[in-house]
């Protein structure tokens, strides 16, 4: 139980609470089945470039945004 708890990180992903086994932002994107080039990301309001995702560790309570192209005016 202790091990299980420590292996998961609670983050706010696109406004929803999720528990993830991903250690980095790159792993989180992959765990959602998203191609790395199909989305853009931010953590706690700051942009995280595609190349920086693998080195960006997730911390408890991080607010993560993952966005994709959409229609706009």
């Amino acid at each position, binding site marked *: 139980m202790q091990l299980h708890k420590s292996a998961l990180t609670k983050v706010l992903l696109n406004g929803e609470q999720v528990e993830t086994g991903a250690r980095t932002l790159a792993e989180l994107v992959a765990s959602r089945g*998203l*191609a790395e080039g199909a989305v853009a990301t931010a953590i706690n309001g700051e942009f995280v470039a595609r190349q920086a995702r693998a080195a960006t560790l997730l911390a408890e309570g991080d607010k993560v945004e993952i*966005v*994709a*192209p959409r229609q*706009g005016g």
Partner: protein
Amino acid sequence: MDAARPATTKPFTLYGVEVSSRLLLGTARFPSPHVMSEAVRASRAEVVTVSLRRETARTGTGQRFFDLIKELGVRVLPNTAGCRTPKEAVTTARMARELFGTDWVKLEVIGNDDTLQPDLFGLVEAAGVLSTDGFRVFPYTTEDLIAAERLIAAGCRVLMPWGAPIGTGRGLANRYALKSLRDYFPEVPLIIDAGIGAPSHAAEAMELGYDAVLLNTAVATAADPVRMARAFAGAIEAGRLGYEAGLMQMRDMAAPSTPVAGTPFFDLDGRQ
């Protein structure tokens, strides 16, 4: 002009890019992706606005949409719609730059939910940060002259004042101030963004000397969006041609258009 050739409007330049079509079209609110594509083609727009939204599952919606846009061969202008602070807008712009592969951004910092009017203070702040960061900023602003000056000082080389609040279709709500803005900044590309409801509104903006019109709702929510796209394309071209040709001055009293000299019966009794 060679009378045998169809009249075309002069191209204009946005951040060093020559653009022929003076209609910029939004891609939202169309009844289907197919209708959107057909409307973009019918409008002959060379620049379309796009956006970013949250994606948590592998639906592929975002990528399919972007692929459709790429097929159209148009340049994209990503917006920061919905952003309420400079920080949100700056981060959104950076995400858009990576995702869409362009340093163009339609900068929106919204200050009020009812009017969707720009927060001009936040807009100027965000424009400065983004311009320093290498962005080509297209700020969604009002007709305010001082805000325009501050945006230019912040690095903006194009301004996009509203015609009326987004989605209202009311046309040029403050024609006098918009004309002042045009007269005050003759060299800055000015695009009327938002509030255009009818082709005649767009033609009026062009007759005032605006360089282009950016619209979305009026086309996307028409009963026949493709036909409406064509209508706007025609109105914008006509308005611009009229401006380039030089509009006549209005006057208070009537002036006969038919020559007076040689009018028959002119010397009959009772006529002086």
